[in-house]
């Protein structure tokens, strides 16, 4: 009976209809989505440190134990060293400083398999490969986060629950909004000296307020991945192309034909490029890319492949704790001729958003500091259903 009274409570005196609707919907929707929100937030928080934990497990090969600021081993030397063992280098990743080893991905020509090694940044000595993994655990966390291990049905359950969570964030903010000076103070602080029920209330109310914006952002970027219509709405609102559907098919035809035409032009160019036989100095390419992208960062050299006969050097800035982790690219032909400089900042906002939508959702966009911040915020989101239910149960 008390449960029924609580769920279908009457409007209090002096309570506006708007606040009454917000309050009741906050309770109902919160109860409805609580379990899923808890699971999704918890699994997301667990998954966030995947790269860091994997690197820690392989600490002795990933990190350089004899850290000295000597000269980097040059890419031509790395290529030669690997070729002597019948290994064709496909990618070289130079870290931003000498605290880490260089990662080299290769294709073994004799035994026809792909592998990787970490090598010393100065001597080029092979240190080993990252063989220790708890990939199973992280795969499980990722699947739970995306679909609760329930396939497509789970995808929809998660999607709907996160949509509800967005509504809860907004209604929560409305309910948080203080009426007077005393409540303003209460809304910003947790009174640790008070009794447990008040602390629980403050944890829900105050932490909810502080994490509101970031949680809203994480939820929307999550929905962007889950729902085509959210993706379309976000991309269009940023000035990009909507997702193709029956309604806009005719209008988008010429735009997509232009996209195809630009790829065709590139493919014809690639066919010409494939015919070229030239020996390229990777050292010079790397030097040239440093001049075009003059900042400290992680540098990746991609070697030509069957699909893409160009050299590509990608650089990610690593200058400050909160610098955005976004890539810039320099393309060179098979003969080493400079072809194109693709700066992240030169792309349209819609393209920028699409390129970094995942790191925006995971916090990786701000590097380790972003991941830690997102982890804390997500764990607070995890606590919201718990503290919310405790507040409600006490009122019963």
């Amino acid at each position, binding site marked *: 009976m*008390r449960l029924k009274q609580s769920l279908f409570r009457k409007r209090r005196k002096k309570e506006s209809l708007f606040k009454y609707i917000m309050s009741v919907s906050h309770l109902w929707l919160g109860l409805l989505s609580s379990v899923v929100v808890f699971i999704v937030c918890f699994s997301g928080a667990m998954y966030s440190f995947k790269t860091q934990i994997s690197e820690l497990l392989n600490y002795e090969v990933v990190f350089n134990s004899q850290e000295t600021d000597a000269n980097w081993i040059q890419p031509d030397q790395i290529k030669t060293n690997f070729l002597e063992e019948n290994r064709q280098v496909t990618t070289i990743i130079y870290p931003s400083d000498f605290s880490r080893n260089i990662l080299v991905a290769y294709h073994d020509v004799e035994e026809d398999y*792909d592998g990787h090694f970490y090598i010393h940044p100065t001597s080029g000595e092979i240190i080993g490969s990252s063989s220790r993994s708890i*990939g199973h655990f992280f795969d499980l966390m990722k699947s739970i986060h995306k679909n609760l291990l329930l396939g497509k049905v*789970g995808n929809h359950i998660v999607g709907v629950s996160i949509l509800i969570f967005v509504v809860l964030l907004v209604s929560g903010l409305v309910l948080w909004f203080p009426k007077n000076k005393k409540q303003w103070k209460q809304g910003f602080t947790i009174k640790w000296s008070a009794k447990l029920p008040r602390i629980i209330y403050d944890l829900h109310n105050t932490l909810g307020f502080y994490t509101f914006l970031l949680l809203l952002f994480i939820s929307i970027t999550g929905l962007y991945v889950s729902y085509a219509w959210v993706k379309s709405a976000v991309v269009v609102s940023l000035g990009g192309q909507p*997702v193709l559907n029956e309604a806009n098919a005719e209008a988008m035809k010429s735009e*997509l034909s232009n996209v*195809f035409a630009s*790829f065709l032009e590139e493919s014809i160019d690639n066919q010409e490029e494939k015919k070229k036989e030239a020996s390229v100095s990777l050292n010079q390419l790397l030097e040239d890319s440093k001049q075009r992208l003059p900042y400290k960062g992680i540098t990746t050299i991609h070697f030509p492949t069957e699909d893409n006969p160009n050299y590509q050097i990608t650089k990610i800035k690593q200058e400050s704790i909160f610098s955005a982790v976004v890539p810039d690219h320099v393309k060179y032909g098979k003969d080493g001729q400079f072809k194109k400089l693709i700066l992240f900042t030169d792309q349209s906002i819609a393209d920028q958003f699409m390129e970094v939508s995942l790191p925006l959702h995971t916090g990786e966009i701000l590097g380790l500091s972003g991941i830690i911040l997102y982890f804390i915020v997500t764990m607070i989101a995890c606590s919201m259903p718990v503290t919310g239910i405790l507040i409600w149960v006490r009122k019963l």
Partner: protein
Amino acid sequence: MKKFLLILATISVLCSCGNEKKRRGIDFTKLKAELNLSAGQEEKYDAIVTSYEENRQTQLEELKASGKMSRKGYMKIMKTSYTKQEEALKAFMNEEQKELTHEFVKRYMPGQSDYSDELKTEIVQTLALDSTQAVQYKAVNEAFTKAFRDAHDHYHGNGEAATMYWNQFNEDRKVALQKIFSDDQYAQYLELIKKESYRGQNEKG
């Protein structure tokens, strides 16, 4: 109140214990139903399917453990394994069964959204493309693959949209090929691609 908490707990357990659908792959049970195998063949068929399935799992586990799981690496394992499995299966089959198996594996090969290499080679040969046309034909196909892959950010997880993008870029491909081929070659091309008319019909996104 207790009832309510019990319901919450039950939902939680259900959510945690469900089995996720396995990764996409070829459904050999479906093929088996079409093959009309004898008892002896059935035994060999099951043994080969199980053995290759286990072998693929082991290879994927190793790839995951290396920390270098990528779409390219995954596809390489799947394609190589399914091609070898097809050969192993065909070793005890009659001509009709071999043909059915080949077509089935070709049709459902993971990651194969464009026409098969086999059909593309047949097109080059049947249309008797000269060296310039062959290079242009390859470039057009590459443009199709890249345009479709590039649109992935738009159709990701949306099969219906993926199919629409596939069909739109395929129309663009036809327009580009019409400029390269003679009228006769183009008519032959349209006829040949009917062999794999199922491509682009049910893209998974």
